[in-house]
């Protein structure tokens, strides 16, 4: 047997357990979800084949389709904010921290703290912050004399509900900042030194050296952030449950609500839609950041 054959066999043997586990847990589950989405399953038992009926309901039913489209829109909104606001904030924070500013280690710990607190705990805290009777925001705007903002029911006002949800996570940049920072500090210092000698400012060095060299890491962070947002559920369920009138609905929440009603096959159709949306945004992010290609 050649060395190449031995190496190939070794590689296959090494990945086989993980591949088997992945197949059983994920592929079988996805297959089950796809299959049952075309059957009638509105009780404890799976009944007859119904074809694309659940998908027609999702896309065209007078009552259900507006909720579905609202959920898709919210998911796309979340993904966009993740890619164009959340991650850029994290990258900016990482660049500042990597510059070894005074107390950077303390700032890094403080910024990371929100990520060790459970989402459920945060949801409960934010419900109090946004409470229209005695919440922190009510007190703040009351003290400032801004009555129009003092009386807002932040989580249940159609204009403010979705922005309020976004505020609960968009400034929590510590996790991704630490990941990007780890990549920044591995960039050879000679590159910065030679740029400095050539008269490049700190901003110029960040744009021309740092950002291109951390492209892969930033792209990976974008994908992680987007996929995390697509499956985000606990905070939404506790704070608004998709309300008011489905304005903060997402596909994950919509799926859960239908499961609660034992509309299992329709819930699985929503799951298929969520999977498709996830694949689409990951492919787009992959392409945009050219992940996998060397940055050097």
């Amino acid at each position, binding site marked *: 047997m050649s060395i190449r054959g031995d190496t190939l066999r070794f590689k296959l043997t090494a990945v086989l357990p993980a591949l088997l586990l992945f197949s059983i847990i994920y592929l079988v589950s996805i297959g089950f979800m796809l299959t049952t989405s075309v059957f009638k399953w509105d009780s404890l038992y799976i009944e007859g084949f119904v074809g694309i009926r659940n998908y027609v309901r999702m896309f065209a*039913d*007078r*009552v259900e389709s507006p909720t579905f489209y609202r959920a898709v829109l919210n998911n796309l909104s979340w993904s966009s904010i993740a890619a164009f606001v959340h991650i850029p904030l994290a990258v900016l924070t990482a660049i500042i921290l990597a510059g070894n500013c005074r107390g950077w280690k303390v700032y890094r710990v403080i910024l990371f703290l929100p990520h060790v607190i459970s989402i459920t705990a945060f949801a409960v805290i934010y419900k109090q912050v946004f409470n*229209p009777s005695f919440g922190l925001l009510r007190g703040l705007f009351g003290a400032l004399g801004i009555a129009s903002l003092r*009386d807002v029911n932040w989580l249940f006002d*159609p204009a403010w509900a979705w922005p309020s949800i976004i505020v609960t996570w968009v400034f929590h940049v510590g996790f991704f900042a630490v990941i990007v920072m780890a990549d920044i500090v591995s960039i050879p210092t000679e590159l910065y030194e030679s740029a400095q000698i050539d008269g490049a400012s700190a901003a110029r060095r960040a744009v021309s050296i740092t950002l291109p060299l951390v492209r892969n890491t930033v792209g990976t962070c974008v994908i992680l952030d987007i996929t995390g947002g697509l499956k985000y559920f606990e905070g939404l369920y506790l704070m608004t*449950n998709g309300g008011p*009138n489905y304005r903060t609905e997402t596909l994950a929440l919509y799926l859960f609500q239908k499961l609660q009603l034992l509309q299992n096959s329709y819930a699985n159709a929503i799951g298929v839609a969520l999977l498709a949306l996830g694949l689409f945004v990951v492919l787009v992010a992959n392409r945009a950041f050219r992940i996998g290609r060397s940055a050097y």
Partner: protein
Amino acid sequence: MKRKALLVLVAIACLAAVAFGQSGKEVQLRFLSLQVGVHPEAKWFEQTVASFNTQYKGKIRIVVDGVAGDQAAWEKLRTDAAADTMPDLLMVKADRSEFNVLAQSGRVVDLKPFIAKDAALKAKLNDAGALATYTDDNGRLLGIPYAKAYVGIYYNKDLFRKAGLSGFPTTWDGFLAASEKLKKSGVAPISLMTGENAWTSMLMLANFIGTSNAGMKWLATKPEAQDFSAAVFVDAVAKLQTLLEDYTTPDAVGAGYGVAANNFLQGQTAMIANGPWMIGSFSDPKSAPAGFEPKVGYALAPGNGVIAMENIAYGSGSKPSDKQAASFEFLKYLTRDDVYSAYLSTGGAAPGFKTDMSKVNYPRINKEFVPIAVAAKYKYTIFPNAVKPAVVDAMNQLLPELAAGRLSPAEFAGKCADISASN
């Protein structure tokens, strides 16, 4: 030859040992229960199971599979039903959506044959309405009716007095006038909630609907045939909208049960619609300030109405005949006068079968309320029993819109009709 004879003797001895062991074997029953942790009936439940286990030691032993919280316990039971791993003992609720799922599973034991053989128990189960509630479409009795609830409106007598009100209003016009007086005295009149299952708001909606002959008929209509355009429903929604807009706390929109209950218990609101299970919290130092319980009154809904709901039953999911027999023993044990009177005294529930009420020591509030509830002119069920589960589920989406005036009562009713038709 000798060896063969010895082997045969050993085999017989082993079989005899197994048989002897089987005949003396303790039957273990799994009891899936939500009456654990901080549940108001947890202490009664724990004591009942412990005393049963002591009395039946060596014969039957109950192992509690405790799941705190109504929703979590229901999801566990539903999963067990789907997976064919039913608990031996379970609580069967009168909630139609839950009951129908259990009935459809075919995995809950029909208790009729067992009861037919037990004359004493048969004589106790004298409430035909209660028995009908827990009988499925195939005539199978899935639970022994255990508790009924008469649900009224709790009110804070102190806050009423401060607002210049001498008693609880007996008409809806009087109710709105009283609410206005309470509001002027600086307190939010009533605790409502639009989050979770919008429970206290749904109770008020049932009260608005049910206090008329047409309304009682509306609430008795099957969900599949429900008419949301009926004037009695639209008018009730309009009244609920008035309460949400003008007579409740700002955090009622989006609030869960904890917020609504806490507002009443802390004196932020003067009224809350809820069942007898809340009575325990009025004197619980973890829930209410000292001296709160004497301030609380319990009244019929204006218009002389009361929600009269079957609440819970106990049943079995056992398969082997020995476990079914053992489960039935425990179900019978639950109907003993001493056990049952302790249960009724704890939660203030109304009995689901014939029992010696002289041993029941109701909390003060229930002692005053139950006789007037029994005599109420209109008795009706809760709103979720009259509509499809999808409509109930949509309440926490639609009620904030109603509260903010973005949906009119007619539009709200239209949405309910659309959701009902689509699900």
